[in-house]
């Protein structure tokens, strides 16, 4: 009696699970498997025949200049983003909390605003600002007597332009998280420290930072893991990976291989490799995180 009732309850429960389960299996896990399978074929999206090529796609990928450039650029971007969107927002958050009254709110609202608008639309504006002849950046540089480079079509600056736009767009999110994290530190901690005669700097180093550690870790991890994905839109709109692959990155490479070169199998091989790399990096970071962060100490 009870067993069948439990079974009925379980069945009912599965009904609740069903929509999410179906969607996840169909649109995440099946594609994951399909993508890996696809990576062993050569197909151009249009022809009715698929050619099996074994490990050829992977072999070719590892020997392609574009792939290594993309890897290097992604690393550069991840490093830059980590510094600029993990450290700087922290300082900004501390600064904003120093301010009293409604100014605090104004700063918060303004600094967070880029995060709310669409990255694609923002990139159209940046495209205009980076224009080598008429864009405002080079116009202002000309006033200073400097001939600004062609930001988006110069091999050395293209990826940095993309990084700049990404920083501008995403720092607000971390900023706001830091504010919440800082506010969560109980005021008594600060008072106790001040009573003990600690200086501002000491308070910051020994109380604020350690108590902020879980927040910092969260911010660091998400920034790092999401950086390839965040790079896609600026790359697609501003440079398309150019000039001559100089600003290509892992976030863009798969799209380029699949929808610009139409080498769907090859693109899938790239996707699979990228996934494995990210997985390894995330695992490594979690491992380090576990060892270094002490909650509530």
């Amino acid at each position, binding site marked *: 009696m009870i067993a069948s009732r439990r079974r009925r309850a379980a069945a009912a429960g599965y009904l609740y*699970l069903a929509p999410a389960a179906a969607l996840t299996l169909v649109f995440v896990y099946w594609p994951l498997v399909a993508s890996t399978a696809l990576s062993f074929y050569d197909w151009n999206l249009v022809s009715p025949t698929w050619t099996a090529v074994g490990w050829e796609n992977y072999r070719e990928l590892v020997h392609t200049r574009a792939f290594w450039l993309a890897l290097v650029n992604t690393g550069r971007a991840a490093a830059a983003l980590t510094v600029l969107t993990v450290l700087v927002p922290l300082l900004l958050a501390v600064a904003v909390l120093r301010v009293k009254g409604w100014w605090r709110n104004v700063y918060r609202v303004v600094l967070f605003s880029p995060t709310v608008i669409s990255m694609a639309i923002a990139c159209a504006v940046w495209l205009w600002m980076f224009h080598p002849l008429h864009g405002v950046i080079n116009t202002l540089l000309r006033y200073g007597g400097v001939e600004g480079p062609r930001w988006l079509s110069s091999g050395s600056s293209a990826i940095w332009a993309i990084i700049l736009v990404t920083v501008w767009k995403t720092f607000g999110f971390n900023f706001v998280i830091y504010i919440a994290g800082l506010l969560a530190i109980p005021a008594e901690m600060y008072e106790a420290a001040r009573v003990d005669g600690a200086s501002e700097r000491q308070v910051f180093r020994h109380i604020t930072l350690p108590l902020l550690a879980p927040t910092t870790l969260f911010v660091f991890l998400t920034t790092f893991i999401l950086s390839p994905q965040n790079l896609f839109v600026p790359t697609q709109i501003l440079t398309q990976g150019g000039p001559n692959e100089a600003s290509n990155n892992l976030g863009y490479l798969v799209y380029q291989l699949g929808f610009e070169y139409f080498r769907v199998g090859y693109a899938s091989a790239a996707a699979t490799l990228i996934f494995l790399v990210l997985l390894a990096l995330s695992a490594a970071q979690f491992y380090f995180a576990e060892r270094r962060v002490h909650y509530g100490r």
Partner: protein
Amino acid sequence: MAGKARWVHALLLVTCAAVVFPMFWMLSTALKPPPEIFAGTFRLWPVHPTLQNFATAMTQVPLLRLFWNSLFVAVVVTAAQALTSVLAAYACAILRVPGQRVWFGLFVATMMVPFQVTMIPNYLLVARFNLLNSYMGLVVPQVITGYGIFLLHQTYRNLPASLVEAGILDGASSWQILWRIVVPATSTALAALAVLFFINTCNQYLWPLLVASDRYMKTLPVGMQEFVNLEGGTNWGPLMAAATMAIVPALLAYVVAQRYVLESFVTAGLKE
């Protein structure tokens, strides 16, 4: 002390100015007539502001249609995401169906899968079922949300057990318990999630780019990109006007509801 405060203000004001400048410049360019745009001298604000760029933009891009597409898709996706998250989190956290731990793990793990890996097979799937350039094709693959399930799971677990038990004692069905007890008790979290979902979906770019190649099915961000390509580099005035029209509603909504929006992002971000 006052001196220090002034430094802080100065730093923040400069940062704010730098952050806001692109949006301001967008508006300024949109209001400039073409000679001023290409003048080569720096003017913060147009000498002869004009609305002609806006008029041109409206004729070259079906803005209203793009707005509607974005809005429609965002509303449907948000509702669907909210619904599936609620149901799945309920099943895992409260009903505790057998195997819920595995399922929960699977749901959360989707956050680890970058879209580069799934986009090609998903595109092929949607194409096979003839759903390209359709609302269905735009909406359905966007409904997965490991994040929503994760967050709600957390929230539901933190509910006092007595609440649910009272419902069981009253003889309520699992459905009734969900909608009459659990959801109302966690409405702030759900609302915060909905705001997050909505903003994110409005701003989605890659999936609509792949799925909607038809001019009239594009969402706003993708339509904007098409506009960038249209003249290949001389249509800056109307382009900035179009961008202004696209961004301003979002910004206005944000400013009006800013406390709410900020708290949503924070709640969502910290609950882990």
